[in-house]
């Protein structure tokens, strides 16, 4: 049974991954390391794992794999150290905030002969899986266009600090949809144009809070994407992942997390959308554990993380220059 550790609970997804590890009979959640000992100790206690405060000691543990949920800019260092210690790595998205970091992470894992996965749980969301199956089957013919959104609420904290996050909503909310479109169409992104704004949370954020991307894929499909932290505190859920596919033989709409029951509780004094859908994080973590057992690459690899990062980086370049930017010549 693979023994897994979590490195850093800076990203809140770590709590979901921790719960998934505990729910999986084929995995053992052994240890936690965190550069914020208070946070790490509390998380370890919550999940019944051991907290190890010294990184070298943590890496000396008999762990098969680690899940890295640090601030974005620290992904490279942690991945490299974990790989050198022979651990398989599942790294929170975005894999990296620049292309050089992503390359280095891939190389480090190749050299150490450990698998590297990027946490793209959307690949395990049933509505997106069904959409993929139907498009791949040819039922809808060629994909001509797609209009996407990944809206969220203001995450605050380090997400809003450029030095730690590498960027704002565009950095945070571009890669999921980029990965989903690559995964569904089997095509790469070629060009991007980006505008971004920071009106919504100007008072509290130094980064962008809305990014509007216009992209072109191999074969010419035109794509728009909204990467935002635009959902207000009063909104009934955290946000969304939606895609409208315009195809040769019809239109297909996915609202990936809209399997919901509407709840009106006087205790909350705001409407709440409670999901009845599956838990994509569980599929993601299970795939990582099985990849270790079967010695195969995880579903979404480091390369997939790199490709998504390339799009985000090009988007920020476009924002700076005001021009369309080619992605990976």
């Amino acid at each position: 049974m693979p023994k897994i550790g979590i490195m850093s609970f800076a990203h809140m997804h770590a709590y979901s991954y921790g719960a998934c590890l505990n729910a999986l009979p084929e995995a053992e959640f052994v240890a936690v390391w965190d550069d914020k000992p208070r946070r790490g100790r509390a998380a370890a206690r919550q999940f019944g794992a051991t907290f190890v405060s010294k990184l070298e000691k943590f890496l000396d543990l008999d762990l098969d794999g680690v899940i890295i949920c640090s601030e974005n800019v620290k992904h490279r260092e942690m991945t490299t150290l974990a790989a050198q210690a022979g651990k398989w790595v599942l790294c929170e998205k975005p894999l990296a905030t620049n292309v050089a970091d992503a390359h280095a992470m891939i190389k480090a894992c190749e050299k150490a002969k450990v698998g590297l996965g990027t946490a793209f749980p959307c690949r395990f969301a049933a509505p997106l899986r069904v959409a993929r199956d139907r498009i791949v089957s040819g039922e809808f013919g060629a994909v001509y266009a797609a209009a996407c959104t990944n809206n969220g609420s203001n995450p605050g904290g380090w997400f809003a600090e450029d030095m730690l996050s590498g960027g704002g909503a565009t950095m945070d909310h571009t890669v999921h949809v980029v990965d989903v479109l690559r995964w569904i169409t089997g095509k790469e992104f070629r060009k991007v144009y980006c505008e971004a704004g920071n009106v919504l949370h100007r008072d509290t954020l130094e980064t962008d809070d809305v990014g509007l991307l216009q992209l072109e894929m191999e074969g010419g499909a035109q794509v728009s994407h909204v990467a935002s932290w635009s959902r207000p505190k009063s909104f009934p859920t955290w946000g969304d992942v939606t895609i409208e596919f315009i195809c040769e033989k019809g239109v297909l709409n996915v609202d990936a997390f809209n399997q919901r029951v509407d709840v009106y509780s006087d205790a909350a004094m705001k409407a709440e959308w409670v999901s009845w859908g599956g838990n994509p994080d569980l599929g993601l973590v299970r795939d990582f554990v099985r990849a270790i057992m079967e010695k195969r690459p995880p579903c979404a690899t480091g390369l997939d993380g790199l490709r998504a990062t390339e799009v985000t980086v090009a988007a920020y370049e476009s924002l700076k220059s005001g021009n369309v930017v080619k992605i990976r010549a």
Partner: protein
Amino acid sequence: MNLAIIGCGGIGRMHAEMAARCGLKIVACADKDPDAAKALARRYNALATTDADGAIRRPDVDIVLVTTPTPRHAGVVIDAAKAGKHIFCEKPFASTVQQGRTAIAAVKKARVKLFVGHVVRYFHEFETLRAQIQAGKIGEPGYVKMYRGGIYPGGPSSWFRDYAQSGGVTFDCMIHDLDWLRYMFGEPDRIFCQALRRSEPEKLDYSQVTLKMRNGMLALVIGTWAHPAGFQVKVEVCGSAGMLQFDSNISSLSAMKREVKGAGPTMIVPSSAEDVSPYELEWRDFIGWIEGKHEPRVTPEDALRAVEIALAALKSADTGRPVEL
């Protein structure tokens, strides 16, 4: 006051009813297709003719309604201005900025009134969005998403199916949203557009427009003539302290008819169950202006600017680059 209608197609028929409700008398119906002219004229006991200029110049005509296909708008507006008539022209005001400028010059010279039907400014749901924003309900708006469209309009030989004439969904349909954005939030600085404009294997258009507004706001406007059926309008306005959403699919009245197979709709206008149609509100505004009661909500300059912005979107789509405005 008496009305001559030039162009008795889908929207011409609808405006005839709105104008009649406002007390105008329809005296002449002109269309290059005599059957279209006759069908409408019969309903209002008006003259049916294929001679548009003759209809415009009738001494008993006070107002000319221009509901021809778009490329003909400016020409009819100029003819009507020269004849000294007030003019209600459908959007898009003109096919080119130059046409629009020439038409406005003719209108100014003749001292007649020109109103262009940017009807979205009169839609109850859009007025409600406006009121909520102005009441400060969502704080400072920072990002707007607008979505409009459905099935490709017009039959197989319709002018809508010729991108050179209609401009596709970007020019014909999204001009509504581009105008409303400017009406609400001021001038755009920069625009970027991808527009599908396919003809094979069938006519399909899908357009994605990004606008950076002068005040720092962002907007994404999506228009579709790529759906197999239906018509939908969606608006989302995100602000520093909240968000507004409207979706025409969430409706207090819905009905579905079994259509005869093999025929597309001839005219698509959004419709809700409401006490007063926004199309009638346009006419009230226009008539009140003619009667000297108030200024209109849409000026000829607004209409020209909407044409300019929509054409900038198409230029961006053609060149693959952002266009500065």
